[in-house]
């Protein structure tokens, strides 16, 4: 029966099935043939029972090709578009490894595009009652047989309307969000990097563990920000009301920005303001330094309080 397995391997290789899958299919067949032999089946009976290796390869290849709707790896393909009838929507994004980008498109529909080799049919992608959801497979990662890392990337184009509630939950995904108007946003990320550009929002809450965050051209009412070790760079923007920053060991850099009340707290990360003009500021630090370097020293910053154990806290002229 050696030849059966050899023929099977040749046929599977011809179909360009990947090596790991071939190994698995061969192991499965070796096991079944051993069973047949131990049952005392003759070689002829076994050949009859197992049929032709070519057909096995054909069938296996049919669904390895068919199942993942393969998009061109470097280019995005349109998956679905959802017409939006309301003047605002909620966004709900829950992903693990997939990178994604959320931008303003030109149509009045939400367009979902994707690239990569994952199984897009395992994702929840829907618009129900003004809430758009993009969620990864539920049993993600615990599946024994199918533990391959998902290779999908998403691009979501939104119509030019208000996002009233934006929830984002990602583990390793890198995300880019640009040209969006938001009412409230809450984002929780672990390792992924976030990049915001041209964002108008009322209340924003960002939590990150190791991921870095960049925000450019922003206009917010309040921002609550907390990071463990991720670094942050914010530039060219203003916060109408409260700006709260809480960092453990990540560095925080804010440049060419204004706000009303700033609350900066750091354990060992450094916080640097560079032409940063809050109306008032409260600063707390354990060992990190908080430094604000401004050109316009005529702009008065009211220091509500400043406390530090071993770091330095100062506002200096550039």
């Amino acid at each position: 029966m050696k030849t059966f397995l050899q023929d099977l391997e040749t046929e599977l290789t011809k179909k360009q099935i990947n090596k790991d899958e071939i190994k698995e299919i061969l192991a499965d067949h070796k096991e079944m043939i051993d069973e047949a032999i131990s049952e005392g089946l003759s070689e002829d009976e076994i050949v009859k029972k197992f049929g032709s290796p070519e057909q096995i390869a054909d069938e296996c290849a049919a669904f390895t090709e068919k199942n993942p709707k393969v998009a061109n790896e470097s280019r995005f393909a349109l998956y679905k578009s959802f017409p939006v009838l309301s003047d605002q929507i909620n966004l709900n994004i829950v992903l693990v490894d997939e990178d994604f980008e959320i931008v303003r498109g030109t149509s009045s529909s939400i367009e979902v595009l994707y690239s990569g080799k994952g199984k897009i049919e395992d994702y929840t992608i829907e618009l129900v009652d003004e809430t758009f959801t993009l969620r990864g497979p539920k049993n993600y990662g615990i599946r024994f047989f199918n533990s391959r890392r998902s290779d999908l990337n998403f691009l979501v184009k939104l119509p030019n309307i208000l996002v009233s509630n934006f929830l984002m939950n990602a583990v390793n995904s890198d995300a880019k969000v640009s040209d969006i108007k938001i009412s409230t946003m809450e984002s929780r990320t672990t390792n992924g990097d976030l990049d915001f550009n041209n964002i108008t929002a009322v209340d924003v809450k960002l939590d990150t563990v190791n991921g870095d965050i960049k925000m450019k051209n922003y206009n917010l009412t309040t921002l609550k920000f907390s990071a463990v070790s991720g670094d942050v760079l914010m530039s060219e923007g203003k916060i109408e009301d409260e700006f709260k920053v809480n960092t453990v060991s990540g560095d925080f850099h804010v440049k060419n920005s204004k706000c009303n009340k700033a609350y900066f707290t750091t354990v060992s990360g450094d916080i640097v303001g560079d032409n940063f003009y809050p109306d008032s500021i409260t600063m707390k630090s354990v060992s990190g330094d908080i430094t604000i370097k401004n050109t316009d020293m005529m702009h008065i910053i009211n220091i509500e309080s400043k406390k530090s154990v071993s770091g330095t806290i100062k506002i200096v002229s550039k």
Partner: protein
Amino acid sequence: MNSQFKRGIIELCVLSELVQEDMYGYMIINNISKDLDVNENTIYPILRRLTLDGYFTTYLEESSIGAPRKYYQMTKKGFEYYLTLRDEWDEFIGGVYQILNKGGKKSEDIFARFRDRINKETNK
């Protein structure tokens, strides 16, 4: 038989086998080929596809023949899929029998009716 149609039926059979208990590949193939004239090369690819789709998980268990056997276990998703297919199948096959039985239930009845009709027509 149309191979796509046949594949659908085998798929339902594989699911039905695993609804009962966890089984290893050779056992599934033996059980099905006892009642239906199908080869391993039809059953195995279906088993594999259903596993990749998350309807079954697999685990290894030592066996008396030496090498460990790979057992297939139905997941909740698999069970739900089985129920859907089973309903579809029952409805379909019910409909087919409705149509077939219009001509009579037994071959003798059907033949008798057919013979009468042909005779009437030739006597006209």
